[in-house]
């Protein structure tokens, strides 16, 4: 069963993709919602808002940190910012699951949001996938233990470290299942 963090954000779209992959799902709002999950998704949304809600519930933060030691977590957009080690905005909480540093809203306001074709390394080949970049962040630095698995026009947009996967854009908004497949199927 896959959990989708539902403090705020596009958890709906992730539920649709999880259903499409025939996996069970549960919304996660409290620490006891994490029990018995096989994986967890940090959706997109507003990273400052999600941070505020996390800070009101320390047990949820601790529960997720513990969970991350043995199960995979996937983050998209705001999700990858929360999973990163560092962001250019001190108000945002960083779990540090991915040794990367992030820049928020790096492409500009909504009017600069776009659909792009990303290229994804999957089972030793390269696949194209479509994704929406919605007020998206950029990955500015990548640590040595981080594997780059997705790019957009030579920019790093998707990374893996251990079991964990983060991507700056939203394949799930276009019903693209590839990234979820990579994060959750490979670790089954």
């Amino acid at each position, binding site marked *: 069963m896959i959990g989708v963090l*539902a403090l705020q954000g596009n958890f709906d779209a992730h539920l649709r993709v999880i259903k499409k992959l025939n996996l069970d799902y549960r919304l996660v709002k409290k620490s006891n919602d994490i029990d018995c999950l096989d994986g967890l998704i940090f959706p997109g*949304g*507003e990273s400052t*808002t999600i941070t505020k*809600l996390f800070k009101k519930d320390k047990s949820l933060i601790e529960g997720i940190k513990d969970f991350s030691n043995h199960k995979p977590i996937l983050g998209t*957009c705001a999700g990858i910012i929360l999973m990163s080690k560092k962001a250019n905005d001190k108000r945002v909480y960083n779990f540090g699951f991915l040794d990367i540093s992030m820049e928020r809203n790096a492409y500009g*306001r*909504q*009017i600069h949001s776009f659909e792009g074709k990303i290229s994804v390394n999957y089972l030793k080949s390269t696949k194209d996938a479509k994704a929406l970049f919605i*007020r998206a962040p950029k990955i500015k630095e990548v640590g040595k233990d981080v594997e780059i698995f997705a790019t957009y026009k030579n920019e790093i947009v998707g990374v893996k470290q251990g079991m964990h996967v983060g991507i700056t854009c939203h394949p799930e908004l276009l019903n693209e299942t590839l990234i979820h497949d990579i994060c959750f199927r490979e670790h089954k």
Partner: protein
Amino acid sequence: MSKVSFKVKVGLAEMLKGGVIMDVTNVEQAKIAEDAGAVSVMALERIPSDIRKDGGVARMSNPHMIKEIQENVSIPVMAKCRIGHFAEAQILEALEVDFIDESEVLTMADEYAHVDKHPFKAPFVCGARNLGEALRRIHEGAALIRTKGEAGSGNIVEAVRHMKMITSQIAELQNADLLLKAEEYRVPLDLVEEVAKNQKLTVPNFAAGGIATPADASLMMQLGAETVFVGSGIFKSEDPSERAHAIVKSVTHYKNAKDVLSASYNLKDAMKGILMSDIPEDEKFSNRGD
């Protein structure tokens, strides 16, 4: 407009789900809203309850004031244009506002047509009282629908009416002649067919108009709203910051009465509010723009 750019517009609405969008009239309020966990702020010179009180023509806000707010918060900034006033919408787009609210709260500029929203790169949100209005706005290019409610009233009754109306009219489509419904609602058949099949609008559906307490926010979420707009309810109360925090918490945990209860503790008085029977029909904002 291509389907691709429409998906990009709806994409931002998807990101705002499960959140609270707050009306703010200056930088200080915008910071209070952001600090409380608002997902977005609506920048406007006068909040609806003051527009109602002051009278006169209510127009798009001063771009300088909107820009100042944009420069001081990192969450998306929305702003309102008058119904049908596509030139105001063009200015807001040039200002790179994240969402344009073609709003019945402002004085109407065109009594016969809304803005054709397809040519814009900026997404639009529009109010609706019923399914017909919602579908017409979507057909015109709106990427997000909200109930009209009755803005500035502090009275939830109209938002409840509009949300229940939309929900029940969507359910009715299951056993209806869709061609007749398309004719009645003045929209293409394929739009009605899609809504009938999925049993939900083709864009996210938020609530607005009259939300004043954490309980109001929970009520609207339980009735099917995916996010709530709070206008006068926060900055017309006696404790804006505490109330803003409380409403954010009650939206996240809207199904959990204990959380909504704990959010409701220690709040001072909510805005006073107005009875619908005390607003003359021709002064109701929700009657504007069919």
